[in-house]
């Protein structure tokens, strides 16, 4: 059900999103004032400032927002598909596959586009593997899918550990950054924006079915949902969103698990609201986390995945407490 407070929530999140983007554009080792940022956005900036914004901060901010949005959306879908509050975008082993791809690329000395391609290929392989095994023997069930995903994840975990323990110290450093999630090398392009847009529109189109499916598969069927079709769409869309997010920034934790729960606690339980809110809050949350990652121990940078947990855990607990006492 949608009420006035839901529109207020969306409004508030749009404000937060804009604020987070400005915070991110203003944070970093080169000090830029708000005037410089505004001037640059209006296309009349200074040479150096212009370069910093254009080549470093804007792409990075956009990458952070896109990654966060995709992860939160994927989290929403996974939680409904598996009807498990512990589900997150990585639960079915996609990030594990991507990590093995990325780490192998690092081991072989590849970087840049090769590394992202390797990560994406690993993710796709894992998606197909889990889907294949879960559907191979008999009927699809949530338990079977979940177990397959968890077991495949564990397998990837072992491979990751082998790669970590057998690599040189130099490589291990980059591998760890990738594993924790890091936006310093991230670039997004048209494909990523398109994917996020498709996610938003598709998520809205399917939002009523998501509402019904969150009450269980039998109930959803009884209420007229074609479940075979819906779960295929959900599995593959959530997987592709996750794969895209992971190739942008590595496996940034926490966003996909907790952002949907925070919003549900704040009353956005209807997916017509939860879908757009997740994209906004997931995106702006990662933008803020990445700003902090850049300035907390500047000029050094933290992996953003560490910061998401450090600010995410207490804010989640605060929301949880305040909604329980009501």
């Amino acid at each position: 059900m949608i009420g006035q407070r839901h529109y207020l929530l969306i409004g508030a999140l749009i404000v937060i999103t804009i604020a987070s983007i400005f915070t991110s554009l203003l944070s970093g080792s080169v000090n830029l004032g708000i005037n410089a940022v505004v001037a640059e956005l209006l296309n009349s900036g200074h040479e150096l400032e212009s370069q910093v914004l254009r080549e470093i901060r804007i792409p990075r901010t956009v990458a952070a927002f896109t990654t966060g949005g995709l992860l939160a959306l994927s989290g929403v879908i996974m939680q409904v598909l598996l009807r498990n509050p512990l589900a997150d975008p990585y639960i079915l082993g996609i990030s594990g596959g991507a990590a093995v791809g990325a780490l192998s690329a690092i081991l072989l000395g590849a970087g840049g586009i090769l590394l992202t391609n390797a990560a994406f290929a690993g993710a796709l392989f894992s998606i197909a593997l889990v889907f294949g095994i879960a559907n191979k023997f008999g009927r699809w069930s949530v338990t079977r899918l979940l177990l397959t995903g968890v077991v495949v994840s564990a397998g990837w975990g072992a491979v990751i550990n082998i790669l970590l323990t057998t690599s040189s110290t130099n490589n291990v450093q980059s591998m760890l950054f990738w594993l924790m999630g890091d936006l310093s090398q991230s670039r997004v392009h048209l494909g990523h924006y398109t994917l996020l847009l498709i996610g938003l529109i598709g998520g809205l189109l399917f939002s009523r079915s998501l509402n019904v499916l969150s009450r269980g598969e039998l109930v959803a069927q009884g209420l007229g949902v074609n479940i075979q079709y819906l779960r295929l769409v959900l599995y593959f869309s959530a997987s592709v969103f996750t794969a895209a997010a992971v190739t942008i920034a590595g496996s940034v934790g926490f966003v996909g698990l907790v952002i949907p729960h925070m919003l549900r606690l704040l009353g956005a339980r209807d997916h017509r609201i939860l879908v757009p809110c997740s994209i906004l809050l997931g995106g702006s949350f990662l933008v803020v986390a990445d700003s902090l990652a850049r300035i907390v121990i500047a000029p050094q940078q933290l992996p953003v995945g560490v910061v998401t947990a450090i600010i995410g855990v207490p804010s989640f607990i605060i929301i949880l407490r305040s909604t329980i006492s009501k």
Partner: protein
Amino acid sequence: MSSLKIQSASLTIADKLLYADLSFQIERKEFWGLLGKNGAGKTSLIHCIAGLRSIDSGDVQLNEISVQDYSRAELAREIGILFQDGLETLPATVMETVMLGRHPHVQSMFKDSKDDLEIARHALQQFALTELSERQIDSLSGGEKQRVAIAMLIAQQPNFFLLDEPSNHLDIAFQFSILQQLKAILSARNGSMLMATHDINLAARFCDKIVLLLENGDYLCGDKMEILTPENLSLAYGCEIRQLGEEGLAFFYPV
């Protein structure tokens, strides 16, 4: 006149033959009871009729067309199911849940229509849930959850109700009053129902016709007066069952 026809259905699950050649027809305004001992296939039959599970042979037809040929949404406007297992759920309030009953009907994407809200509120009121409408589902008692599930079914407004153990979790007062209400609601819209239950006395009280599932795929079906006899019931449940009282208010008990 619409009808729900089960035609020579057969089903075997895990090497156990549940029905070999099961046929009966539910006409509008009829109230059917579905009895049989645990594992006799009551829930499976409900799922088969609703098109949620396919039968091995035979057919289930709604208005002369096989249920498998309907889209799920079309079917959901005609047939509503009360499931035995409650509403597993991510967080949701009572009102939000009952509103989901409106899903099979055409709805706008961004707005809840006034009619839908009114139908849901009315359903809440009928089952004494108005006070609970903003409560979270997982904070409710078993009986309250069962009433929410029933209110959701009412909001769905189907013509055929398939009820799987509707009296689950309900105290004796609610068992009686809710079934009476369901019957009144159905009668008002010329609807019909099939109620699977383990409570013979409830079926004797509220149903006109009975399907009694027996061992080895056999079954009995017909008017309740013919079917609900101590002999038939003893055969079906594999223990001796006796009857107190006469037709109108018969009471069956095991010895």
